[in-house]
């Protein structure tokens, strides 16, 4: 059981598909115009991930190694088709608002990535939890971005008004360009954190190695803090 919980933690925090791995960017940007859409897309993808991971894990000894990618794609496409019908029947409003992006889950690289990296090598139960973790991580990422865009772009969260009446919504944030800007800001913040970390480590190693910070004449091309590259 411990291993299963570790997979969930890994998916949500350590290898979060949106914030850390940067996978599946097309749906991330396309459906995050409102929080409810982001959450819906995230949960749909989670369902697909759990099912496809379980199926692929079950079939991992049956599918020959050479044709495994087409095999995985067929499994994923079948699961997506089933989920699409379930959505159409039981949550038609979500089905309407996600539209084209539901069948496009097939080409979401997170799903094929997990199938290849985890489910094809591990037993069924951990694979299912791996799917759950990755899916929840994706859901958290999508919902966070969507909430941010919805607050700025229309002054609401999940459709409930939270900004004061006098707030003028910046509607560009719920339109296409807003997605690009929000994602750019997100990556920029991450880069800044990485730069700060690298600087902190760099100062330490400078003291230790006595590096004169003259990178262009230094022979150590493997140095992580080289400034000329």
């Amino acid at each position, binding site marked *: 059981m411990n291993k299963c919980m570790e997979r969930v933690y890994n998916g949500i925090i350590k290898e979060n598909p949106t914030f850390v791995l940067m996978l599946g*960017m*097309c*749906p991330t*940007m*396309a459906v995050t115009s409102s929080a409810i859409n982001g959450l819906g897309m995230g949960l749909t993808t989670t369902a697909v991930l759990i099912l496809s991971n379980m199926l692929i894990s079950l079939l991992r000894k049956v599918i020959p190694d050479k044709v495994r990618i*087409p095999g995985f*794609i*067929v499994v994923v*496409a*079948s699961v*997506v*088709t089933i989920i*699409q*019908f379930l959505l159409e029947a039981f949550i038609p409003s979500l089905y309407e608002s996600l*539209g*084209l992006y539901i*069948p*496009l889950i*097939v*080409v979401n*690289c997170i799903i094929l990535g997990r199938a290849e990296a985890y489910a094809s090598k591990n037993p069924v139960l951990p694979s299912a939890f791996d799917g759950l973790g990755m899916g929840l991580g994706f859901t958290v990422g999508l919902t966070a971005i969507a909430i941010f865009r919805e607050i700025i772009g229309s002054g609401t969260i999940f459709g409930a008004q939270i900004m004061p009446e006098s707030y003028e919504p910046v509607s*560009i944030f719920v*339109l*296409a*360009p*807003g*997605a*690009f*800007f929000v*994602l*750019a*800001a997100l*990556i*920029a*913040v991450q*880069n*800044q954190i990485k*730069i700060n970390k690298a600087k902190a480590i760099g100062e330490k190693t400078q003291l230790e190695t006595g590096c004169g910070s003259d990178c262009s004449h230094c022979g150590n091309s493997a140095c992580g803090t080289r400034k000329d590259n």
Partner: protein
Amino acid sequence: MKELIIIFIGSALVNNVVLSQFLGLCPFLGVSKKTDTAMGMGTAVIFVITISSFFTSLIYNYLLIPLDLEYLQTIVFILVIAALVQFVEMFLKKSVPSLYESLGVYLPLITTNCAVLGVALINVQKSYGVLESVVNGFSTAVGFTLSIVILAGIRERIEFNDIPECLKGTPITLICAGLMSIAFFGFSGLI
């Protein structure tokens, strides 16, 4: 004829596949460092999307609909596209080596381009016939090429600018794409 022109303008400019529908973002961000490579990628995409929208709409209209198998569209389309890219690659290698050389590495990359599957699904959604599907596929790909080449041009200029450390790379590219997307809103009055 008029209808086809409207489809062309609509797909290439107004509903640009990358800038307003977010399909094919990975190659859009990944292969847009130089104008030459962007052009190569664009040509390959035009080639593949036009052919694949022809075949997928042919299969959908004359095979899946008569057999009442519309629900299999996603599975069938993805397999057709994957197989098609393989065949196109083998065919070009044998018979048009010069084109194969210039498209080279971009061809296999296209299978992972969600724009290809996206166009096939849009064709079904809008219930286009075969001719309309081909026109729609071609114009969507032209829109893709247009935006990736423009972005590559901008990125070549950005190389020489002094931008904050944390914005280098992907963030500044995304900001450019966002500004381009605003600019493309200007086309929305065309149809």
